[in-house]
């Protein structure tokens, strides 16, 4: 029954494996499909929602995230654009001004730099400048950060750039539950939301409960999640690096170190309370991100911890694990050494704990 329901809901072109547990059904859904289903359901729920971007319609999406949507909803609601980011991002914002709820896809967030003026000056600031008169209910989404072998111009992480700006909400999901719940929340949000996906996570499957598969399942924007309870040290991360933190925690557990892993889920507004509560419990902090260190997400978290009550609970200075401060190289061996690896997290934890 559950498989039939999910088959009907998700479309025809892929099969969902399901595992029936003793008490409730769970579904194996990869991040790509979670995003696809979320968009499908929101398109169905509200006819003002539409998707535009390069190759989103007839190509089924450059990364197949919008597969099947054009076939189901047609030209009016799934729109292929020319390769003109500044133009179509501006058009999306204008459509949001006039009452629609666009999802504007950037093929990768690197290309958003072509359109960043529309995201910041036209979308983010307008509600404030108009003193609450003009809302901008738009979602900008696309893959962010490093991929595999795509080199310098296609590998930048924009969490810090967009996270800097008041008026925007910036969201960075890790797993399928995050992707589904946060994208639905973003589409239903009346504010401009920057939705930072990760290309390397698209194909990774996760278990989703029946409750998570409900069409009104949303995750509140601005709330972090403790993915793993721990007592000795807090690891704060977002997006793909959350997985690395959990892997590092598993290795460290064998040595008796219990890490608490916090999945930020939202970059802006930052859930400082959850981070502080965790640090006040463990006394140690390591932030982990794929982006560059200078003026980054980790830098912000450390500054906030310094300025808040949790500082007095720190047994050691908080440190950051980040991408290397260089443009992304191409050769595999160089690329592998440009991004934080599990061993880097383990090393930093041991340094902080003086092990």
């Amino acid at each position, binding site marked *: 029954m559950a498989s039939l329901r999910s088959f009907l809901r998700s479309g025809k072109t892929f099969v969902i494996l399901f595992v029936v547990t003793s008490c409730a059904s769970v579904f194996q859904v990869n991040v790509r499909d979670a995003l696809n289903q979320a968009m499908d359901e929101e398109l169905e729920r509200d006819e003002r929602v539409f998707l535009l971007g390069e190759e989103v319609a007839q190509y089924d999406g450059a990364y197949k995230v919008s597969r099947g949507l054009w076939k189901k909803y047609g030209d009016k609601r799934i729109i292929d654009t*020319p390769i003109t980011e500044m133009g179509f991002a501006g058009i999306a914002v204008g459509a949001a001004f006039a009452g629609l709820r666009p999802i504007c896809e950037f093929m990768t967030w690197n290309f958003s730099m072509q359109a960043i*003026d529309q995201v910041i000056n036209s979308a983010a600031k307008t*509600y404030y400048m108009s*003193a609450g008169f003009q809302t901008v209910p738009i979602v900008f989404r696309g893959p962010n950060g490093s991929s595999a072998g795509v080199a310098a111009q296609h590998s930048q992480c924009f969490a810090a750039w967009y996270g800097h700006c008041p008026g925007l909400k910036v969201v960075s999901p890790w797993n399928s539950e995050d992707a589904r719940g946060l994208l639905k929340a973003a589409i239903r949000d009346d*504010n401009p939301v920057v939705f930072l996906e990760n290309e390397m996570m698209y194909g990774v499957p996760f278990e989703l409960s029946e409750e998570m598969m409900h069409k009104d399942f949303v995750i509140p924007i601005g709330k972090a999640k403790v993915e793993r309870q721990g007592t000795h040290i807090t690891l704060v991360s977002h997006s793909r690096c959350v997985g690395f933190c959990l892997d590092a925690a598993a290795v460290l557990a064998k040595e008796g170190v219990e890490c608490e892993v916090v999945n930020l889920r939202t970059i802006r507004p930052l859930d400082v309370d959850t981070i502080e509560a965790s640090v006040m419990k463990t006394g140690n902090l390591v932030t982990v991100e794929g982006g560059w260190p200078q003026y980054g997400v980790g830098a912000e978290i450390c500054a906030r911890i310094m300025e808040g009550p949790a500082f007095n609970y720190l047994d050691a200075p908080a440190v950051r694990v980040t991408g290397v401060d260089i443009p992304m190289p191409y050769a595999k061996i160089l690329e592998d050494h440009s991004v934080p690896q599990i061993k880097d997290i383990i090393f930093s934890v041991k340094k902080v704990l003086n092990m």
Partner: protein
Amino acid sequence: MQNMLTLISNVFRLGNASKNVGAQAVSELLIGLSKYVDLTAPPAPATPRQPPLPPGTRMVVSARSFADFTPQASFPIKKCDLHRLEEGPSDEALLTREQGLQYYRTMQTVRRMELKADQLYKQKIIRGFCHLYDGQEACAMGIEAGINPTDHLITAYRAHGYTFTRGVAVREILAELTGRRGGVAKGKGGSMHMYAKNFYGGNGIVGAQVPLGAGVALACQYQGNNQVCVTLYGDGAANQGQIFESFNMAALWKLPCIFICENNKFGMGTSVERSSASTDYYKRGDYIPGLKVDGMDVLCVREAIRFAADYCRAGKGPIVMELETYRYHGHSMSDPGVSYRTREEIQEVRTKNDPISMLKERMLSNNMSSVEELKEIDLEIRKVIEDAAQYAISDPEPSLDELCNHIYARDPPMEVRGTNPWVKLKSVS
């Protein structure tokens, strides 16, 4: 002369004739007389001078009734240059007396409002950016006259005129310029960020408003509401890449978007010849049809925008218009406006081509109004502007509680960091 005698005898033969017939006869007589005598001339010097009346005094215009005025007249207007169009707007415009008075009142209000803003800026009561629209009134008025209130409009930073024509009161505009809580954006937006229903500002980034306008047009098409979006930009912005990106998508998807280049000949201090390889801005849409319009003639603008709106509403896609116009002020209040053009040039436009004078001329020479009536309107406007200025000066500044509000829409209240970690400010939607 024989004709004149007939006219005069018609009047005397009225007797029990109906009021309308009588009025018509008198009108005909006056029109006839106007060929010989300038009826619009000021009173003869022999008349004793009256002391000046207190400002705002309501005057009885004259013993003549309104039925004396010509109810409407047709005016020849300049033919538009066309690009990829077989035919353009009509070369004749019908103007009723009511319309004429309304256009006059609106344009004069914008003119005086901008001059008052100039005055307040020089008194340092307005600060920051202030880009004045005087000289270009016919564009805003003509456009508003040719579209519906349910249509949409977006423009760049020289926006005070459009803010008014789109329905915002003068006092709310001036109070926004002076940064007071009674401003249309509660003092948080300023000169370039004023919004109203179906009016999307006021945009500070040159050219960014053009894709936005195309997006509004997309929404109109999507919602099937038969509305159009008027998207304005200047000659300086006309070279922006995002405008061509907008042209492409608007044409591809047949968006009901009227792209209008207000060509006032200068982008800041750079003349069009020095900025643009092609100054035929109405042709820059290439595959999009275009027309070049005399932007100093409110009737020309109105006929053109009606034509353009019909074109878009018929589903034919976007259209480009170039309005040839002129600004009397410099680019902004920090620009005297005479380093890149001569005072003689500015003066020549004022005397030969002023949009308000042109309308006034037309109305007076066709007996659609009188000098006294227009003066009365001027006085009323003066009072409105004075009251608005008084309001703008005396209204208090926004409360500091407002500082962090309106970050997010429809969200629960949240905390915003102040200038230091101990300052925690409150933000509501």
